[in-house]
């Protein structure tokens, strides 16, 4: 495709050059000017109903809605001219006529666009003396609750359900000042991606029932991460308060998930805060596991592995870094490695190309395959008698007992200590989970994406890659890594698919492994 024609215009005195067909609002973003807006969202069709994005365009007869006006050559746009400010102040006053102004009890306070723009450009005091309209709170099904009084009728939620989820469930009911968002007869927000309307809502009208009244927007720490729920690898923001994960939200990435995240991924965060974690390295002393220190536990695990084959049963939820080091452990001992992937139902989001909750309910199956681990339904089939079974963040439950019995000894590298490990494990090495360490996942399309540490791990647990590196070092390999990025550099040097990648280069959007275009998993 030929390069689109570039249009040159001036916004707030700044020269801007954007492709033809761009809206003034998007063009202003490239110049670092945010034009206030409610109904416009880059992931949704343009509606032009809120009139909040009115700007003054020189030589135009009246103010233009910048979300619905395409740029033209030589345009001169004023965003903060007195005329534009006066118009937007009027719009805000109208929007606030029936708004209850209950910010102190509203969950959106602190991340509310109505609040932000009213403080920026609105009136200090309202002039309305009449009473306000009142509508009761409505349950929209799924995780969504609708507070009609706060709604400004931007119709983002309606357009998301119609055009992106393509499961028309919402509409604008009634007319005029009685208008509110309603559900179609017999419909509920039960679509697997319906929870996105909560993030799309610019005000506190659509709220998550799960996080209702739990947390204030200004109390949380936000960390860029990747959803570990399935092999799609949606980018997400982990919100923590007091070292506990309280909410997961989508993070925009045009290449993977655009602006969206499925409900299952969004609500599946409680396991990240599990309190029944294994906190100390442990070794078997007679019938029981005894707490010990790291050096002793690693030395004991290395002594078990010396001269034996290591059979690694790895979780596809481990980062590339840990899987790479475990594959080196396999190579070093001449053993084998396998993993299995839990299966779920595929749930696509029709309005976005190649976005679905995938059937593979693990984030890094592709990475595990790249490092030579074998994907299998019965992963222990290759376990030979006398092998040392290294169970890395995986369950033995559900596997054949005779298979397990062939193992000479079991080394558990895990976040928790399940019942089987309590009597079967010889050495237990505690690791941190996905929100407690940093690393990378390779999604099903071969996109390597970084996730960052959002909370601290419990007790003496250490990152999975650090434990694997210690084990390698104890076996005489050179594996002296202090940072996850150093492991990744070693990984990029050893595997041609990752050649040339580094943490800095991956950034927030990730990068594709070499040959990803041809080797895509169906």
């Amino acid at each position, binding site marked *: 495709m030929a390069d689109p024609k570039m249009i040159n215009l001036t916004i707030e005195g700044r020269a801007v050059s954007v492709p033809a067909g761009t809206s003034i609002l998007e063009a202003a973003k490239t110049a670092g000017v945010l034009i206030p807006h409610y109904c416009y969202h880059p992931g949704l069709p343009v509606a032009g109903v809120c009139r909040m994005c009115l700007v003054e365009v020189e030589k135009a007869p009246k103010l233009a809605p910048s979300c619905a006006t395409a740029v033209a050559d030589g345009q001169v746009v004023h965003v903060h001219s007195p005329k534009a400010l006066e118009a937007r102040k009027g719009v805000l006053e109208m929007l606030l006529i029936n708004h209850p102004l209950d*910010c*102190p*009890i509203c969950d959106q*306070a602190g991340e509310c666009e109505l609040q932000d723009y009213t403080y920026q450009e609105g009136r200090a005091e309202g002039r309305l003396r009449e009473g306000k309209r009142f509508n009761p*709170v409505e349950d929209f099904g799924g995780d969504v609750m609708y507070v009609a009084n706060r709604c400004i009728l931007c119709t983002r939620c309606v357009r998301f359900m119609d055009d992106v989820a393509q499961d028309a469930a919402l509409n604008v009911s009634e007319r005029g000042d009685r208008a509110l968002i309603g559900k179609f007869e017999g419909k509920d927000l039960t679509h697997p991606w319906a929870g996105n309307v909560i993030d799309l809502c610019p005000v506190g009208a659509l709220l998550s029932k799960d996080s*209702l*009244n*739990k947390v*204030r927007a*200004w*109390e949380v720490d936000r960390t860029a991460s990747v959803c570990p729920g399935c092999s799609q690898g949606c980018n997400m923001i982990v919100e923590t308060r007091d070292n506990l994960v309280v909410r997961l939200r989508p993070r925009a990435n045009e290449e993977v998930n655009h602006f969206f995240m499925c409900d299952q991924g969004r609500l599946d965060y409680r396991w990240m805060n599990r309190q029944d974690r294994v906190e100390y390295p442990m070794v078997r002393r007679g019938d029981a596991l005894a707490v010990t220190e790291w050096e002793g536990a690693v030395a004991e695990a290395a002594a078990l592995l010396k001269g034996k084959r290591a059979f690694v049963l790895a979780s596809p939820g481990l980062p590339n870094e840990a899987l790479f080091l475990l594959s080196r452990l396999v190579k070093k001992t001449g053993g084998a490695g396998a993993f299995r992937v839990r299966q779920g139902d595929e749930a696509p989001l029709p309005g976005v190309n190649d976005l679905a909750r995938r059937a593979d309910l693990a984030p890094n199956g592709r990475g595990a395959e790249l490092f030579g681990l074998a994907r299998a339904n019965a992963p222990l089939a290759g376990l030979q008698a006398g092998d040392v079974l290294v169970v890395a963040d995986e369950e033995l439950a559900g596997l054949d007992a005779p298979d397990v019995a062939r193992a000479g000894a079991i080394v558990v590298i895990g976040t928790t200590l399940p019942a089987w490990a309590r009597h079967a494990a010889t050495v237990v090495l505690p690791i941190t989970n996905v929100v407690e360490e940093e690393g990378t996942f390779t999604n099903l399309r071969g996109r390597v994406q970084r996730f960052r540490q959002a909370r601290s791990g419990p007790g003496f647990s250490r990152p999975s890659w650090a434990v694997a590196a210690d084990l390698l070092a104890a076996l005489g390999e050179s594996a002296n890594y202090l940072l996850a990025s150093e492991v990744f550099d070693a990984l990029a040097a050893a595997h041609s698919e990752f050649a040339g990648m580094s943490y800095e280069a991956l950034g927030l959007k990730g990068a594709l492994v070499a040959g990803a275009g041809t080797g895509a998993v169906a």
Partner: protein
Amino acid sequence: MAIGVKVLDRPVAQTSYIRATLKGMALTAKHLLSPQKVTTQYPEQKKPLSPRWRGTHRMLTTEDGKAKCVACGLCPSICPANCIKLVPGEDEQGNRYPLVFEIDEFRCIFCGYCQEVCPEEAIHLGRHYENSEYSRQGFVYDLERLMAQTHPVCELWDPADPKGE
């Protein structure tokens, strides 16, 4: 070698203590005859407090006896001493209210920011200074205790002179 000290030869009128003693006794006798009382007979007698006095907190209540607090979370955010603990929840009517609201009066620096920031005019500092407890834990006031306080509340500014001029 001895140090040479200069000895001043002053007249007796200057060096005699008799005159000074008599002067002091005269002052004492004067106060004995027309006494000036400066001691406040605390606790029978108390000095009036400024309307802007900032003492231990009090939570105001609505007419039906519930705390006015809606657990918006502004006071723990603004508190420079980090002495307010707040856990929001929902009551039977679905209204937002504080499940836990505790103020550690020992950590508090009585700046009055919590009262100033409160959108519901619920938490107030008190015009009150008599606090004593048998344990440090006694100074962690929970919601019930904050609501049970009856002392007058602080006015953050003098109504007659709101700008402090």
